């Protein structure tokens, strides 16, 4: 009796799910799951044959929708709307308005209204079409050998090239207010409510993902040919996306825009997540170790520090910082600058890339750090990423063992950058308060130039 009852509920839910079909060319990933297509057992056939089973089993994107109903998310939603207890229509309304555009494969219609969210919709998470594009206009054709000639005429996304893959990821992992006609704006309000800040790096995220594609394929070899190249180009795209988001946020508040009040209120200005978190979130002691190394207490935080460091010179450039500052600039200026910065870096990403020898890249970074310690945690983190890429390329070029001295040195630097010593569920609330740029510099010199000594700034 109970089984029949549960079965009937499940059947009804499926019927309703089917009826609430997504729009905008989204057809769902159910048909991908056939054993002869992408749903074979992991290990049988080529990688494409079990890509969906691999994805569903091990990819964090598959459960990104279910994350929205766990305890941490319930806390975040309550912080946004104190009346939004789980489960309730108010809860689902917050999810529709603020969350599902990134955490699920959503159409614009899924991001509005007050209808309860279907369990299967959340359970599907960020599924195939989120990254590969709405499948309505390419599903029937993508099995054809000649489809390659038609790809650009369909909604299928480029996930093979560095630029294509980064563009696919940054729509959610940096954000956008326009891509796919969705608002994916994880702003300071959400961070304040408890959402982790977004610090996207394509190489790390790519390595974390259980590959549901063939990493050894010719197409993927371009991606992994040079870690330095991949990281550099992807960081250009990251900065471009961050700049565009900043410009889109600013656009809402430019004086010549006629925007409904509801939207004005939903896009705070100034938008604090466009700036270095730790520029504000620091100890207020007089002799704060977070005081700028430039000894400037000017209230000019670094703009989009995670993305801009190493790409735009902002440290010690107060004029630039003023133009991008939250209180000394204007939405119009930031909208204009954001668009220009984005274009510059998209053009760089689309252009030729001169690949230097990994050892030369590595040595130049080490030399730079030896000359001057990093200004702050962000700069140190970016240098760490650049060193990591160079070491990966050296390991490939020189066929080094995994436990080589360079890799050990990189691992040590990683420990220095950690917010805490032990894995913590609340790491999003931590900060690099204990980070010491001088110690980082010393560690670099000690690990990679054992006969040299660091120079002070």
């Amino acid at each position, binding site marked *: 009796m109970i089984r029949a009852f549960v079965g009937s509920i499940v059947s009804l839910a499926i019927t309703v799910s089917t009826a609430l079909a997504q729009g905008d060319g989204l057809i769902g*990933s159910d048909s991908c799951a056939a054993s002869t297509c992408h749903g074979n*057992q992991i290990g049988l056939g080529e990688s494409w044959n079990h890509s969906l*089973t691999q994805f569903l089993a091990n990819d964090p994107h598959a459960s990104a929708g279910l994350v929205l109903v766990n305890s941490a998310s319930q806390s975040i939603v309550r912080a946004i709307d104190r009346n939004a207890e789980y489960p309730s229509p108010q809860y689902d309304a917050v999810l529709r308005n603020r969350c599902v555009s990134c955490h699920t494969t959503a159409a614009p219609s899924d991001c509005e209204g007050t209808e309860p969210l279907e369990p299967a919709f*959340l359970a599907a998470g960020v599924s195939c079409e989120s990254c590969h594009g709405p499948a309505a206009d390419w599903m029937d054709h993508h099995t054809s*050998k000649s489809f390659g000639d038609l790809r650009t005429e369909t909604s299928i996304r480029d996930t093979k090239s560095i630029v294509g893959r980064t563009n696919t990821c940054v729509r959610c992992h940096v954000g956008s207010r326009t891509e796919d006609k969705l608002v994916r704006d994880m702003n300071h309000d959400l961070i304040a409510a408890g959402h982790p800040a977004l610090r996207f*790096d394509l190489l*790390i995220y790519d390595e974390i993902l259980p590959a549901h594609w063939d990493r050894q394929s010719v197409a993927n070899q371009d991606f992994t040919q040079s870690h330095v190249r991949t990281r550099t180009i992807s960081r250009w795209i990251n900065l471009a996306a961050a700049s565009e988001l900043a410009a889109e946020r600013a656009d809402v508040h430019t004086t010549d825009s006629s925007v409904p009040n509801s939207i004005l209120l939903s896009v705070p200005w100034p938008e604090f997540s466009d700036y270095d978190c730790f520029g504000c979130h620091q100890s207020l002691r007089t002799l704060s170790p977070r005081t700028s190394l430039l000894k400037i207490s000017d209230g000019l935080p670094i703009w989009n520090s995670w993305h801009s460091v190493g790409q735009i010179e902002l440290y010690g450039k107060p004029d630039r910082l003023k133009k991008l500052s939250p209180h000394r600039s204007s939405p119009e200026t930031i909208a204009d600058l954001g668009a220009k910065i984005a274009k510059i870096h998209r053009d760089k990403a689309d252009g030729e890339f001169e690949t230097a020898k990994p050892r030369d890249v590595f040595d130049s970074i080490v030399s730079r750090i030896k000359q001057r310690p990093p200004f702050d945690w962000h700069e140190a983190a970016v240098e760490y990423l650049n060193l990591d890429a160079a070491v990966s390329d050296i390991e490939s070029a020189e066929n080094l063992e995994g436990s080589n001295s360079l890799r050990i040195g990189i691992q040590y630097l990683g420990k220095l950058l950690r917010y805490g010593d032990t*894995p913590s569920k609340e790491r999003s609330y931590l900060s690099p308060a204990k980070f010491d740029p001088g110690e980082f510099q010393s560690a670099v010199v000690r690990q990679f130039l054992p006969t040299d000594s660091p120079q002070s700034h």
Partner: protein
Amino acid sequence: MLCIVGGLVAGVAYSLFVLATPNGSRHVSTGTLALPHAHFENDCGQCHADLTPISSDASKIDLQWLGVSSVKSRQHTEAACQSCHRVGNHHRADLNSDWKSLDQDCASCHADHEGRENDLTAVANENCTVCHSNLAATCSGESKRQNSISGFTLESHGEFRSLSEGNDSGRVKFDHAQHLLPGQVEPGELGPMKLSSLPATLRERYRKTLNNAGQSDDDLVQLQCNDCHTPSGNPDPRSTLLSDRELGRYFSPVSFEEHCQACHAIRGGVGTPGTTELPHAVAWQDLDSLLAANILGSRAIGNARVPGDDSQAVEKPGDGFGPESPPAKNILDPGVLIAARQRVKTECQKCHQDEDLSGTSISAALSGESEPIIPTRWLQHGLYDHGVHASIQCDQCHAGVRDLGDSAEASDQNVIMISNIESCVGCHRDPMVKTPDEIQAKHEVEFGGMPVWASSDCILCHRYHPTDPNRALMIQAAQNPGSAEGAE
């Protein structure tokens, strides 16, 4: 004197008649019985009764004044035969009175006393065409069959009705042509099935030797007709004929487990190593528990990521390797199960109509209450022995299986891909008709060396007497003429 001479002449003439002619010899000796009846040859009473003729004319002889009744004769004839041969009548209820009588007269088709080698089952075509050349004259009402069949040509027989009228009644979406292609993909298509796509335990079954070389795991799956269509015996479990089973006259029903599962395993997207394939055709609520077991089980043994697991194999600046992996829970989020079942259902819809996927339909199929989704019999009014035709290439009669068609959608379920009478009459023809050139040309290869002439006797494909699962009805039919249905 004259009378005596006349009598002597008549006697001599009669003696010559008796001694020299087959009909005459019957006056002193009726002739030996065929071998099946030989053991009671000396016990005439097994079949004969006084004043009760048994012959092809018995139904007409009615000499009441002598005590010879045609009705009694027919009843006696039928009862005598039915005492061993319990068969039904041939549409007796639909025949007018003259032809009813003929149906009851077994001897009209099965005449004995023709010698030991006489084949009692070898009924001449004339015994069939006497009615079927003009059914309107024999039936009491309107005949449902073709009115005039006088031979076995397209003109004299017509097409096989069950193949030419209506569409394929099967309800499985299947594309034969695609499945027979290498890798089961059409030219110009990606994603062919390779042997490596199949579970290791099943690869040997599908591994072929092509161009004198055995296939490797990296080679394409190449299906042949007998990968799915295996000869077997009579599916009717009552069949006790050993030859029926040995000669492979029939084909085993296509079974998902045996013929489809190797490539089309049902997983619902849950396919970590060690997970079990889902069974075919089970109630949905039973499927739910198996799906849940696969999902939770794979998480429990570390083959799948637990939702909420933010641990990382690669260090992120600041976060490090993230928090520790949370323990696997033993409760499945209902949304996950719903989504998995939807994937299963979508996979089912690849081959099945929606109406066959309801709980009611599945229950009816499992209990045997509903008709099989793939018809078990195609020739409704004739018999075909695949066993004797085994040398002939399947394409000769099933050419439609290679037709890819214009649409990407499977269309086999709408087309009966069995050739009609035109594929038979080339060989099954009058012995005086010369072998057609196109048939002769196929003798060695396409026909596998089979003779290119075969009999066109009606009884080769048709049976007069019906089978009946309830044998008691047969006896009732014998006792009550006109109460039972006829045969093919």
